[in-house]
């Protein structure tokens, strides 16, 4: 029997060993920063939308057309996340909209501290005119960004027709955390075996409260629903 505690186990010792109950989330540092980002965005007078998708699903093209459609009626700011290059930010700036490029140098997702830095730079670029909507275009990746809250008010997942309608089943974690599911490049439906009903029903099984929009940024088909959706978010 153990002399110290009287128990029947002999494979432990009481030297200087101590047990500490921690019960703390390992994402807490990110979550705290995300909460502070959210307050920061609201102080800027804006709401933020985190756009998550695979590379090439049409995030930047969506933003370009959205800027064109909204014109001067809504003040937009964009934070772009990529592994390398300023290319996406340059495309947004060409539309006359302030854009900050975050290059992760290899990391597969944006995290809240990176976005914190981005918000300060965006404020500077905005020259005090303020913002109504800040789009945060995450690193193209349908997996890792799902784990990291950035302080956004809404999280949108884009899935383009060429990627296939089985993606909600294959990447469920990403859909579970989303508010909006956007099926893009619907102008290509005739060329691909994409089952819109399958994509919708599988996504709704994972996240029953999901809003779903289908549209093409190229032809503009269905785009007015997206614009209405944004305006409703702004007036909410």
């Amino acid at each position, binding site marked *: 029997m153990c002399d110290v505690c009287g128990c029947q186990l002999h494979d432990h010792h009481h*030297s*200087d*060993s*101590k*047990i*500490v*109950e*921690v*019960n*703390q*989330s*390992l*994402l807490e*540092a990110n979550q705290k920063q995300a909460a502070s980002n959210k307050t920061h965005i609201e102080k800027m007078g804006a709401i933020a939308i985190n756009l998550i998708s695979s590379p090439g699903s049409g995030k930047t093209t969506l933003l370009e057309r959205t800027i064109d459609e909204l014109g001067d009626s809504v003040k937009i700011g964009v934070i772009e996340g990529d592994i390398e290059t300023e290319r996406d930010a340059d495309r947004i700036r060409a539309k006359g909209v302030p854009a900050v490029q975050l290059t992760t140098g290899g*990391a*597969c*997702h944006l*995290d809240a501290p990176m976005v914190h830095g981005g918000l300060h730079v965006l404020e500077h670029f905005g020259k005090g005119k303020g913002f109504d909507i800040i789009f945060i275009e995450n690193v193209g990746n349908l*997996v*890792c960004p*799902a*784990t*990291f809250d950035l302080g956004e008010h809404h999280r949108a997942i884009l899935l383009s027709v060429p990627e296939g309608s089985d993606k909600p*089943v294959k990447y*469920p*974690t*990403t859909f*579970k*955390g989303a508010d909006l599911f956007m099926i893009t490049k619907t102008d290509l439906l005739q060329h691909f075996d994409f089952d819109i009903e399958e994509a919708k029903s599988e996504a709704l*099984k*994972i*996240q*029953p409260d999901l809003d779903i929009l289908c549209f093409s940024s190229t032809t503009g088909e269905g785009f007015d629903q997206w614009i209405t959706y944004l305006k409703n978010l702004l007036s909410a």
Partner: protein
Amino acid sequence: MHELSLAQNLLDQLLQLSKQHDAKIVTKATVIIGPFSGIVVESFAFGFNAIKQDHPPTATADLILETPAPEYICLDCNTINTGDAGTTNEHPKAVYETINDKLCSACGSSRLSPSGGTELILKQLEME
């Protein structure tokens, strides 16, 4: 791939807590990884065991991973149904897809949806 940056968060926490408690080494850390967290348990363990060696206080720390069973809420009657638990250090496979084969234990509805399970928690620490 984000498992490595999460393992780095764990390492930072362990180093900070061992300093705070005047401990020389961390012998054991218990971490809970939820079934819907999107974190691959094996990759997280691999990442942690690779980087722990860079720091004397964590170099020999044992990582114990708890993988709670997935829970599914019934969209018709709100009953929580518990799925199969994984084995130690591994989540059950296809925690989302298995929904398709399940019916609510209370009302028989097939409308089940994943509930909670996104946590990544440092539960307990043993130090000397």
